[in-house]
């Protein structure tokens, strides 16, 4: 199954997104990388790196960031995490996470999920 990492400035937000995603796909390998080591707001290179390692397999890992330094810090991790099929995707965080979790649990490939998430960028909430 494709791994999923949620990167957020907030530990609670990242864990909350994982929680919501698990509601629909309990078996999906999804990890939270939220906040700094001491629990304060921010993005942690080490936490992101560790979360990717935690859910990594040859099936790949998709990373969904909240904003700003989540994107930049993850980009730096990816420059060092030298394995194929690990990608940061720009889409709505919660909708994207749920979609990715459902598809991962349903056995969709890294390429399929990536494409669907990119399409989800313009999906309306209502």
């Amino acid at each position, binding site marked *: 199954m494709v791994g999923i990492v949620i990167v957020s400035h907030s530990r609670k937000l990242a864990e909350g997104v994982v929680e919501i995603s698990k509601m629909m796909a309990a078996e999906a390998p999804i990890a939270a990388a939220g906040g700094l080591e001491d629990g304060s707001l921010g993005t942690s290179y080490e936490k992101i790196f560790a979360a990717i390692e935690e859910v990594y397999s040859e099936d790949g890992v998709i990373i969904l960031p909240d904003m*700003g*330094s989540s994107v930049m810090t993850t980009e730096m991790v990816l420059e060092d995490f030298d394995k194929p099929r690990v990608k940061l995707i720009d889409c709505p965080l919660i909708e994207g996470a749920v979609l990715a979790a459902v598809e991962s649990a349903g056995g969709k490939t890294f390429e399929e999920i990536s494409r669907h998430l990119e399409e989800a960028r313009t999906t309306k909430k209502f």
Partner: protein
Amino acid sequence: MIDTKKILEVIAAVAKKIEAEKDFLTELDNEIGDGDHGINLARGFKSVEEKLPGLADKDIGAILKGVGMQLVSTVGGASGPLYGTAFMKAGNVCKGKNTLTAEEFAAAIEAAIGGIKMRGKAVEGEKTMLDALCPAYKTLKDGIDGGKNLIDALKEAVDAAAEGVEYTKTIIATKGRASYLKERSLGHQDPGATSSLFMLQTTLEVLQRS
């Protein structure tokens, strides 16, 4: 000529300056951002300071790279990847060097700016650190090319950076957290441009000491 010892002194002095200006930077960031710039940078440079003794016997490239990596791991906000990349890119062009000429110093600044542009996908005029750094680099380069010594050229570069910080008050942010405020970001100086100015000012002060 700048040697390894001077570079270490500059980094240590920047760490002190950022700590001293922590509240001011955070206050600026409270106005138009998420209010963490001073706290984040101070945390990052404190850990850099602790790391410096271990870098003392390295060349300038390795020192700057080490500083960058430390900032990436410890800052926690956007300034971590941005300044981290800046120091790492500057380190790349100083690889294996134990001294820097004025031209090499300017090349390091140019590489640092290139790193910030790449990482932040930003250009001048978006109310960011680039609005202090880009005019400073241009002035530094013009000065050195025109035959000025490093100190004189850097003095003018610091003035250009200060003008750049003033300029950020007159423009609307289109990058970073402040961009969410749109026209409400007008009238406020950019915290990132301000911390960049502090770094350049401190570099000048240390180089003037010898």
